[in-house]
């Protein structure tokens, strides 16, 4: 960068990255890049790949080192100042427990599989972009761990996140999602993660989490989130570039890409069911409703902005998107109601929403909350008033594809659970939706392998036949799971705050703004 006669950013970038590549002559190209033809995608000219960011290693290192310096300074001062006491309420951390158990391992998986792309894409431009993303994803996994490490010292539910990711029932939802992506070929992975996840859905995942952190006194997560997001914009660009590149290379690629968009939109959307309840139920102080986030980040920005752009290539909005739109009124309620019943076996806690929270939910969901869900919460409250607590006495039926308990309802009928099934080679397989059934029927050989937690428990592969056996195998500790009211975290929190001076105004854990 100190060169007196500077090449332009573009020329310098080309000389320092793409031009490093050479045409192999001692081995066949097909042998060196064996994975880019079996999916049916046709690439005629790898050099047509555009690299918008044009980052060279020196610039990458400089800016990333600066970002991490800022982030770790915040983490250190937070730990020194016992910043965790500034949260709105310890129950806020349920969102972060879900994040560490469910999302951090995905960042790590992305790190490893972008390395696969960094090796096996034929073009040096996309290989280098994939290598940068691989590094970034490792950064995200590690900065998340380090951000939440301080909370882990004082709170439950974070101590065995990696062990749990490989074993616990609801974590098979994110795990199977990503296992599905990394076992696909390189182009499908680019559409699955680079495009569908990073571009189509990432804002729905991250921005609510980070705004939620900022609204609930979680400075480190907010700082981590914004810092990670600055990398995400590079990743979004890679995803968008990938899809345009494939579509421009050959018209035969269009139907293949369309099918992947259809599959991965639905796969990702089902994964985000966990985020929907986080926004509407887990945050003590609400940021925005799932419905509003979905309308803003998905309907406006993606259906309104992106898909008209892709229509140029003949790409249509994803199959089954109308079901997702219709579900925005009911999704979070159904999911949290499910987690409420099964949190005895989870690494987080649940409770009946407070009166204020229910008021907020009724305002956000005037069509559905009071009519469909408030009666359930009233009944659950009555159980509590009688000295009980409703937990489901059994294990749920799971969807073979998304692995979420089959809690979703028929399109247009929010009171009847949706049941779909397909027979394949003499065995019956169950699905939560038309979307998941369609995904199975495209590739049944893949989904028959699914490691479904409920089925595995019944096969005796999860520590033993009883619920306590399974919970021990999950490494759950007292206070990790179950009901919020009266658990060890709440008790400790009250004790910590009781010792502070009387004029202290604890931030009120109420809904709305």
């Amino acid at each position: 960068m100190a060169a007196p006669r500077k090449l332009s950013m573009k020329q310098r970038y080309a000389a320092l990255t793409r031009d490093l590549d050479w045409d192999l002559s001692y081995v066949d190209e097909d042998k060196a890049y064996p994975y880019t033809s079996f999916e049916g995608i046709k690439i005629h000219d790898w050099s047509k790949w555009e690299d918008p960011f044009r980052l060279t290693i020196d610039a990458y290192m400089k800016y990333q080192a600066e970002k991490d310096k800022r982030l770790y300074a915040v983490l250190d001062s937070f730990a020194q100042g016992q910043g965790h006491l500034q949260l709105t309420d310890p129950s806020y951390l349920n969102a972060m427990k879900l994040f560490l158990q469910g999302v951090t391992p995905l960042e790590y998986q992305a790190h490893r599989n972008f390395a696969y792309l960094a090796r096996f894409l034929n073009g040096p431009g996309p290989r280098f972009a994939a290598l940068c993303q691989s590094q970034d994803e490792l950064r995200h996994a590690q900065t998340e761990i380090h951000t939440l490490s301080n909370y882990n010292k004082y709170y439950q539910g974070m101590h065995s996140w990696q062990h749990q990711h490989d074993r616990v029932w609801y974590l098979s939802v994110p795990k199977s999602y990503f296992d599905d992506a990394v076992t696909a070929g390189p182009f499908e992975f680019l559409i699955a993660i680079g495009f569908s996840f990073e571009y189509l859905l990432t804002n729905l995942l991250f921005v609510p989490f980070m705004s939620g952190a900022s609204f609930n006194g979680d400075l480190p997560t907010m700082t981590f989130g914004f810092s990670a997001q600055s990398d995400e914009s590079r990743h979004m660009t890679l995803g968008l570039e990938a899809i345009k590149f494939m579509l421009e290379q050959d018209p035969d690629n269009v139907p293949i890409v369309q099918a992947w968009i259809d599959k991965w939109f639905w796969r990702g959307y089902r994964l985000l069911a966990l985020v929907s309840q986080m926004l509407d139920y887990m945050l003590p102080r609400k940021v925005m409703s799932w419905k509003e986030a979905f309308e803003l980040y998905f309907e406006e920005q993606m259906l309104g902005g992106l898909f008209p752009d892709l229509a140029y290539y003949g790409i249509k909005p994803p199959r089954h998107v109308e079901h997702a739109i219709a579900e925005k009124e009911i999704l979070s309620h159904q999911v949290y109601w499910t987690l409420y019943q099964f949190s005895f076996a989870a690494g987080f806690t649940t409770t009946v929403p407070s009166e204020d929270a229910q008021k907020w939910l009724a305002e956000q969901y005037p069509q559905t909350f009071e009519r469909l869900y408030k009666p359930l919460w009233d009944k659950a409250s009555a159980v509590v008033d009688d000295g009980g607590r409703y937990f489901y006495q059994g294990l749920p039926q799971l969807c073979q594809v998304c692995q979420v308990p089959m809690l979703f309802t028929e399109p247009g009928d929010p009171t009847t659970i949706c049941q779909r099934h397909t027979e394949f080679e003499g065995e019956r397989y169950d699905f939560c939706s038309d979307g998941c059934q369609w995904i199975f029927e495209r590739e049944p050989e893949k989904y028959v392998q699914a490691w479904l937690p409920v089925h595995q428990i019944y096969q005796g592969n999860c520590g033993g036949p009883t619920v306590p056996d399974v919970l021990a195998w999950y490494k759950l500790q007292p206070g990790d799971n179950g009901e919020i009211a009266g658990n060890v975290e709440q008790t400790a929190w009250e004790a910590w705050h009781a010792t502070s001076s009387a004029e202290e105004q604890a931030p009120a854990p109420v809904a709305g703004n």
Partner: protein
Amino acid sequence: MAVRSIGEYKFPSRSRQELYGDDQLVHLWWKGNLWFCAAACFRAPKAMSWNDFVAGMVNPLFSCDPDFDAATTTFTWTVDDKPVSPAGDESLEALGVGHKSLITCVAA
């Protein structure tokens, strides 16, 4: 449609019946009752009698609903969408319940 793969791609189901010996997985769904967020999944012997199934699996689950009373709540039943009238000592297998079958009830 089949998968596109490099090499043969054929793996057994990880939930196939033979993994459960003489038992099978059975789903139980109280249709129309949203108190239960989803249908339940049980492992039950094929030869289990209907009475044992009701006493050992259905009632303990349904009892989490405070409005349920085993003595008075009556149901109509289907197995995989076919109406059935289960009798006391009839086995699940005889009722047409197969691996991962869906037993549905609607409160009368």
